[in-house]
């Protein structure tokens, strides 16, 4: 196929094991599929597309080489309806949050269509136009004013097929809720952005927190937006929340800079609030009896086993030892320890009991 043999077709998947000092999670997102919308035909109509499918249709490297041809019969669609907020901001059937990117890409899609099919009609149904961002609102205004895209504020209750057309039934809430019916050739649903499949499993594997929708959680919404609560793991892009490319790139640059900072130092800095296992002189060495209940309770695998050996090398005792670089100071181990051998700096038993004594 390739005249210069630049592609190796005999290459196979392989599992690679690496020791790394940092991980940047950037597993992205997925979109709701059209078959999740019963009122829009349950995915049964080939000319009801989701945004990603339209993206391929409009792409010069896509299946039609960028020509506007609808999937069912390859005809050029004369009327196209775009539905923003398909599943977003919909507590009852979809997701409650705003998917953030759809307002902008819907304007882009409508424009792309109009640039390819000059005489075609493009309609956009929307709830609100959320075009916050540098030059974003100007972009939407261009779609409306220069490319003559018709924006209708209202939701679409139903789409069905009739005489080779897709009948789109909605309402125009800026005209007092007047019913609107458009006979379209193609419909594009801007379906809700969702967390990538397998995000929950990945988060649990890496001990990263995630929100109820399985987007990864940042360490602090304002002050630590690219860090996770697990040291050495950072976030970039739509795996954390719906976001567009400029924001993804900004965040990814931030994450990369954080990793570079981490690697540029010879020693790690950490919060002083970490757990410590007490040490006393032999023959006991510590109250720790080596049951390692703390080890199974620790969400960060920060507890290691330390062997205490005599001068002749005989094993005297195996104790828990906190890796202060990994410990985040939650104190779950403290509550688990039977012999009170482990305590947490800053929230020690002594300190907390002293507080209780003043009650």
């Amino acid at each position, binding site marked *: 196929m390739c005249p210069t043999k630049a592609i190796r077709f005999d290459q196979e998947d392989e599992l690679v094991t690496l020791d790394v000092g940092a991980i940047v999670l950037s597993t992205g997102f997925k979109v709701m599929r059209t078959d999740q919308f019963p009122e829009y035909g349950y995915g049964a109509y080939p000319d009801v597309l989701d945004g990603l499918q339209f993206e391929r249709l409009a792409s010069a490297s896509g299946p039609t080489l960028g020509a506007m041809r609808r999937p069912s019969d390859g005809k050029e669609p004369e009327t196209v309806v775009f539905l923003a907020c398909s599943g977003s901001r919909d507590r009852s059937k979809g997701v409650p949050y705003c998917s953030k990117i759809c307002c902008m890409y819907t304007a882009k899609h409508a424009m792309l269509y109009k640039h390819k099919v000059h005489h075609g009609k493009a309609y956009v149904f929307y709830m609100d136009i959320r075009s916050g961002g540098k030059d974003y609102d100007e972009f939407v205004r261009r779609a409306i004013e220069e490319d003559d895209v018709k924006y209708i504020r209202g939701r679409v209750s139903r789409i069905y097929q009739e005489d080779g057309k897709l009948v789109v039934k909605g309402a125009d809430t800026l005209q007092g809720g007047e019913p609107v019916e458009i006979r379209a050739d193609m419909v594009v649903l801007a379906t809700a952005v969702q967390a990538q499949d397998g995000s929950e499993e990945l988060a649990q594997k890496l*001990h*990263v*927190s*995630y*929100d*109820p929708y399985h987007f990864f*959680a940042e360490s602090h919404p304002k002050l630590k937006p690219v860090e996770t*609560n*697990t040291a050495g793991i950072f976030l970039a892009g739509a795996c954390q929340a719906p976001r567009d490319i400029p924001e993804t790139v900004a965040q990814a640059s931030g994450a990369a800079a954080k990793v570079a900072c981490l690697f540029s130092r010879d020693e790690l800095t950490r919060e002083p*609030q970490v757990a410590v296992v007490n040490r006393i002189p032999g023959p006991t060495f510590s109250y720790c009896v080596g049951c390692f209940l703390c080890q199974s*309770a620790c*969400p*960060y695998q920060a507890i290691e086993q330390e062997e205490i050996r005599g001068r002749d090398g005989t094993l005297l005792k195996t104790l828990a030892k906190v890796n202060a670089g990994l410990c*985040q*100071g*939650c*104190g*779950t181990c*403290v*509550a*688990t320890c039977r012999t009170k051998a482990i305590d*947490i700096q800053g*929230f020690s038993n002594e300190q*907390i*009991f002293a*507080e*209780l*004594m003043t*009650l």
Partner: protein
Amino acid sequence: MTDAFEPKITAFVCNWCTYAGADLTGTSRIKYQSNVRVLRLPCTGRIDFMLLAKAFARGADGIIVSGCHPNDCHYTSGNYHARRRWMVYRDLMDFMGIDTRRVTFSWVSAAEGARWAELVNEVTTSVRNLGPYAEYKELALAGVE
């Protein structure tokens, strides 16, 4: 002057969710019962039984334990440890003769300022109805003196 009973409520809250939520209650100017004394911990996973027992011994009439909602724990799973322990503590406390109606286990997120006020009001009212908790304190002190 009336000697109306004002219950003492001790709240063990985690730093990241409930403490921040209680902070939000204040910055939102929401009023709530002033009977609660808040003890901040890194995580509800830090709470062991001795802390609850000590609070009662020091005169608490009621206790609130509140952390992050499931899945929201700053430390991934501390709130699950707390929940599992609470199942055991409750039986243990019951066995020891502690009135478990006086301990409320709850979740309040950093965004739920109003929920914190509601929780404190609910617990204060229910503990006020239960009356002062003298029995345990007397027992605990009997051993000391």
